[in-house]
């Protein structure tokens, strides 16, 4: 293991960087997109609700790998030249956003209806009430599940390996076949993943306990 670590240090660090970068980008955009579709789902407008529902159900029920490969293969053919990292991150964002939408929707719905009505009767518009009253409370509720989504995101970013996204797993495959020391290479990669995910996961548990 030590040999792998010292010999392929720069590849590993590069992989770690791409994994983190992809996860952070995907987290940022999937939170925005996810929240948007969550709001769609609670809107009084029926058409918007249906759009929200279709988006969420569609991307929740198709494997991330299929989505990522779709973007890697098909988008460059017809739409725009995007590389593996971009394609994988877009796939990751869309996939995760459907889960975040579901989580945030549950959060919004668990905020008392009276809050919205109260805010509206105080002269706030629907959007103002959503923005300043409902969403902040909903987010407080959904922080622990969102944290878990982030952990999943880091783990799921390993699909970038399938689309040459230069992430940790990709480097791991490369190192494993260069060094021909499969198990130790993947052990090192595993340790690198744990360095990110394990502290996060303990922090989330701590947070959950504190909020409960």
């Amino acid at each position, binding site marked *: *293991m030590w040999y792998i670590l010292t010999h392929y240090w720069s590849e590993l660090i590069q992989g770690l960087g791409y994994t983190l970068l992809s996860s952070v980008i995907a987290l940022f955009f999937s939170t925005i997109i996810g929240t948007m579709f969550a709001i769609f789902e609670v809107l009084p407008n029926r058409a918007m609700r249906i759009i929200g529902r279709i988006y969420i159900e569609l991307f929740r029920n198709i494997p991330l790998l299929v989505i990522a490969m779709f973007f*890697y*293969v*098909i*988008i*460059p*053919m017809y739409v725009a*030249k995007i*590389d*593996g990292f971009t394609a994988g991150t877009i796939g990751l964002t869309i996939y995760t956003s459907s889960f975040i939408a579901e989580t945030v929707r549950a959060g919004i719905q668990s905020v008392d209806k009276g809050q919205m009505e109260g805010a509206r009767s105080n002269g706030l518009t629907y959007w103002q009430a959503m923005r300043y009253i409902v969403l902040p409370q909903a987010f407080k509720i959904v922080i622990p599940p969102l944290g878990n989504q982030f952990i999943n995101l880091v783990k799921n970013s390993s699909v970038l*390996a*399938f689309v*040459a996204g230069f992430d940790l797993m*990709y480097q791991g*495959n*490369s190192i*494993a*076949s*260069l060094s*021909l020391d*499969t*198990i*130790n290479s993947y*052990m090192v990669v595993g340790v690198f993943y744990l360095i990110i995910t394990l502290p996060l996961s303990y922090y989330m548990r701590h947070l959950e306990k504190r909020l409960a």
Partner: protein
Amino acid sequence: MKKVTRYLGVIGMLGLLTVFLTACGSRKSLSQQDVLTNDRASNTITWGVKADTKLFGLMDVKDNTIKGFDADIATAITKKILGKNGKAKFVQVTSQTRIPLLKNGNIDAIIATMTITPEREKQVDFSSSYFDAGQSLLVKKGSSIKSVKDLNQAGTKVIGVTGANSVANIKKFAPKAKVLELSDYAQAMTALKSGQGVALTTDNGILYGMASQNPGYEVVGGTFTKEPYGIAINKGQDPFKKEVNQALKEIEADGTYNRILKKWFGNVAGFDYKEASR
């Protein structure tokens, strides 16, 4: 009840721990049984072959079997070693999975477009070479890439396959190019088509197969390396290796080899199968 739960828990836990202990597990526990004796007993040789490589090993969707030069050579060798009723069992491998699978004993031998290289010889043994390939490039027709020299520019992306020798080579011949490693040749070809890289590099035999499936693409620049393909066998399996080499000699002598070569490469544009005959 409590006892039972605890007992089951311990079992479950042991199962989980197993996985993590693998790294600490000594490499010697590798099944070092004699492959030849086992294969004679079961009348079967298990070969690792490609399933995504036209001409060498390609899955036939119609009957779910792997067909190609490698597969036919493997069958011919099996018949020589085990007799007419000997069975050749095929396990699908990729460039990435083949060496671990061989070392783990999941397969007895690899016959999967595998170049004999000094690095690999530290890990596994090779038979004498059964096919002489050379690395080349596949590009879209009309591409500005004419040879490997054209790839040596910053920002050029070349597509290869994880674990293939060609990836290591291209890093030597075109150090400025960026190599994108895909998991297998089907994925690599798909990536080339979607424009993820300007060229796909691997051995000419494989590339000719791809070019024949994809009319808009051509092999350019000739070969810039020599890639003798060998059958990989675990270290310490000398009796088996001897038998394989012997069988290889026999099929070359009795014309089986040339027949198989002609069957797969006889009509491949740009490939001189007569020159490759033995």
